[in-house]
């Protein structure tokens, strides 16, 4: 049986978590390490059944610290890898998310958000980890995070997460939630030839003299890669070194300020310099908008109804959905702020992404939040009411 025969294609009525697993497999993921946690467990369950069918490896580790590490280790063997979790596990993964960022290791982490803090609300939705996604691991870095609104998009964005992760040699987060993860809807899976798959730049045995190889060189003249240097997998004869310490282009530790500057800048600029490529937005009716609803994930989706209601009543509401949450579309928000009346930011937390919108609006337009902590998706009436308020109708 060849691997393509093991891919699920066609239309299926699939739970979001399962769609994430199928997206990963389509993207070429062949290693999953995880730890059971509601509401992400179904991703692991699906992977445990599906990976052995496509010559992949599934393993349940002893905790999320180990899961994240095993995913990183597998990635350095040259295999695309993934893990999935929710709140408490996400906190544990922060330590080695940092290792993945520092060592420039591709891998994908899906967070099916539930209510927090702490053990919180295991079975119920929230979007309370959005800032943790950005800042949760210590130190300065940039991160890529995507946010789907449906099982179909959980499938699509998991593939995109792998592509970005491979291209930029960095862990990528899929920030979904209990609602989308546990929702079942139609998912259309195209045949493999129609899906864009990106693989990491890689040197293989014999491609170049090992002593001339630099694991963190920027532009590699011999290899022709322009964003990151090609990765060597373990066992290919390059005898490379990687470390979580501040390092130079060899991956060797260097303990000084200059090295830290070089190292941190490198990690940040590879994402900042490609913002336009990474950021995806869905926009409707922004041209004439006086009020713009900025949202993401399930909250963006449930805002569509109140937006329609408000538009029917003659309020010029626009819709801006953040498909990419991090990096944040600073410029787009700043441009809009100059010409609209107000922003409305619905989210299932007490105000996280609203801070970004406020920062980018920089006082040019007021920002209204629609917030609640975890447990339930947003009430459409509340969103509609806030839109009216933002439009000055209340």
């Amino acid at each position: 049986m060849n691997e393509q025969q093991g891919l699920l294609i066609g239309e299926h009525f699939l739970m979001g978590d399962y769609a994430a697993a199928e997206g990963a497999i389509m993207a070429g993921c062949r290693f999953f390490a995880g730890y059971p946690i509601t509401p992400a467990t179904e991703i692991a369950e699906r992977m445990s059944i599906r990976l052995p069918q496509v010559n992949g490896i599934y393993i349940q580790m002893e905790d999320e610290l180990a899961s994240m590490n095993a995913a990183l280790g597998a990635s350095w063997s040259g295999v695309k890898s993934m893990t999935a979790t929710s709140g408490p596990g996400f906190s544990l993964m922060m330590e080695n998310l940092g290792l993945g960022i520092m060592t420039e290791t591709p891998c994908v982490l899906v967070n099916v958000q539930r209510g927090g803090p702490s053990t919180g609300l295991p079975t119920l939705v929230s979007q309370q980890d959005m800032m943790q996604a950005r800042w949760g691991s210590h130190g300065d870095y940039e991160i890529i995070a995507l946010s789907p609104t449906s099982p179909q998009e959980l499938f699509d964005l998991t593939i995109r997460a792998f592509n970005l992760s491979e291209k930029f040699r960095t862990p990528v987060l899929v920030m979904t939630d209990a609602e989308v993860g546990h929702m079942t809807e139609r998912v259309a899976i195209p045949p493999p030839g129609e899906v864009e798959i990106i693989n990491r730049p890689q040197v293989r045995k014999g491609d170049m003299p090992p002593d001339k190889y630099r694991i963190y060189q920027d532009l590699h003249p011999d290899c022709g890669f322009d964003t990151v240097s090609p990765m060597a997998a373990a066992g290919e004869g390059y005898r490379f070194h990687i470390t979580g310490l501040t390092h130079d282009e060899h991956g060797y530790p260097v303990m000084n300020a200059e090295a830290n500057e070089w190292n941190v800048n490198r990690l940040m600029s590879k994402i900042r310099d490609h913002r336009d490529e990474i950021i995806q937005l869905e926009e409707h009716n922004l041209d004439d908008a006086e009020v713009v609803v900025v949202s993401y994930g399930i909250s963006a989706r449930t805002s569509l109804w109140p937006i329609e209601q408000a538009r029917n009543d003659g309020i010029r509401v626009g819709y801006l959905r953040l498909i990419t949450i991090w990096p944040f579309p600073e410029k787009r928000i700043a441009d809009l702020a100059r010409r609209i009346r107000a922003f409305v930011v619905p989210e299932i937390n007490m105000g996280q992404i609203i801070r970004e919108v406020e920062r980018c609006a920089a006082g040019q337009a007021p920002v209204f939040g629609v917030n609640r902590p975890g447990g339930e998706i947003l009430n459409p009436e509340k969103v509609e009411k806030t839109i009216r308020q933002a439009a000055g109708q209340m």
Partner: protein
Amino acid sequence: MPREDTINGERLKLSGYEPTDQSDWVTGLHPMDEMLRGERLPHIWCQGCGLGTALTTFISALQWLEKNQKWDLDKVAIVSGIGCTGRVAGYIRLDSFHTTHGRAIPFATGLKLAKPELNVVVFSGDGDIAGIGGNHFIHAARRNIDINVICVNNFNYGMTGGQVGPTTPHGARAVTTQYGNFEYPFNLPYLAAAGGASFMARWTVLHARRLEWTLRQAMAHRGFSFVEIIAPCSTSYARWNPEGQGLDPQKLRRRGLEVMKHYQKVGKIAHHTHPKDATITVDGNGLITEIIEGVFIDDPKPDFQAAIEQMAHSAKEKWIAAKKTLDERLQLPGRTDYVPRTEVQLGGFGGQGIMSAGNIIGQAATIYDKLRASLTQSYGPEARGGAAGSQVVIASDPIHHPHLIEPTSMIIMSQEAYAKYVVNLSAGGILFIDDGLVRLPRNHRQDIETFGISATQIAEDLGNSRAANTVMLGFWTAIGGVVSKPAMIQSLTDSVPPKTIEVNLKSFEAGYRKGLRIKGRQ
């Protein structure tokens, strides 16, 4: 504390680094140059530290394996955690991974599982492996994953200045136990044995040759192997404890030597000692009085690579069968009429198939009737066996709000679900109940239509009471008419276990006929 390394920052000029004409790799000054990262030397370790010996012994073992067992050292990867020992990965010319504190073992686990041809060695310290990484250590031993863990035990946290650790002997001094350690240490080989490791040994660095033999054995061992290396920490541990006390701190080498002499005195080689008895004994002042050394267990047991291959085989067979069913799915033309947003609530208790009934409806609506549907499920922690609810929204238009706002249709199979959900049914909505399980109260709502069927009884009469949900679905399809019958039949056939297709179809049909009769009467 080890000397921090700033020289290298100058030598390897950052970002502008130009390789010299000569290979950077081999300097030719030391017999092990080929295996050392010469450009990284001198190392950061203190004089008199045992780590150098541990490293060179390890390299000797590798070179022996290369020479005598044709090992390809390109296929050996070394993973370290944090600490003085953790720096080993940075000095040895192998694919080397210096990970986070305590996490070398899970990192190595991923590396090995994803590329079984690699020989993966974890080389780290006692604090890293038995302290912060203790959980990973016992679980790797339990899995019997085919990696080799080498733990250099110097009885304290050296890099941070000599704090007490999980292996510090009872009564011994550290910077944080100036009055003597009041805790008790791990016996690491015993811990590994309890976890299920199939090879474990202990040597002091004094016994370098024996250690090298053991390392060869351990690396060649199939399954989880563990070697504890007792080594002097000349700067920290030896400063506070009798073995090296009183010596001039300027003479670190001397301190290390004194500790080695002490090892010679107290080391006792006793192969095959039960790991429980393979102890490190101390007197009342924390002075080590005996170290049992040797290979305690060398008991090859198959790691799980073979099991993984076997599992993959059955998994693929299962996939081929599943794929056949998928490929044989009927293609229905789909509905062309407009279906307004319809919200269906299903409720009952766990085990009645409420979740799967919701799934059958949603699948019928989307895949076969080509409508849109969102299915959400609700079960609290009590729901494993307790109350179960499942909600389906069906529509021709995109479903922005996936939750029920005005449920128009309810399938209710328990009294509890009746009490919980029926209040929410919108006026004019239709309620379907299993009237064998739900008794309508006297104040039952008059603003809704109610249809009852003895679903569980009917299913039981047909030979499988578990098909009661299917009876309800047939009944609902006939009267409710949101999803077409052919779509429901196909979805049902896809969803139930092959052996029960027949009884489920019969049950569906029974419910459907009863529904039609009632509808005809209206």
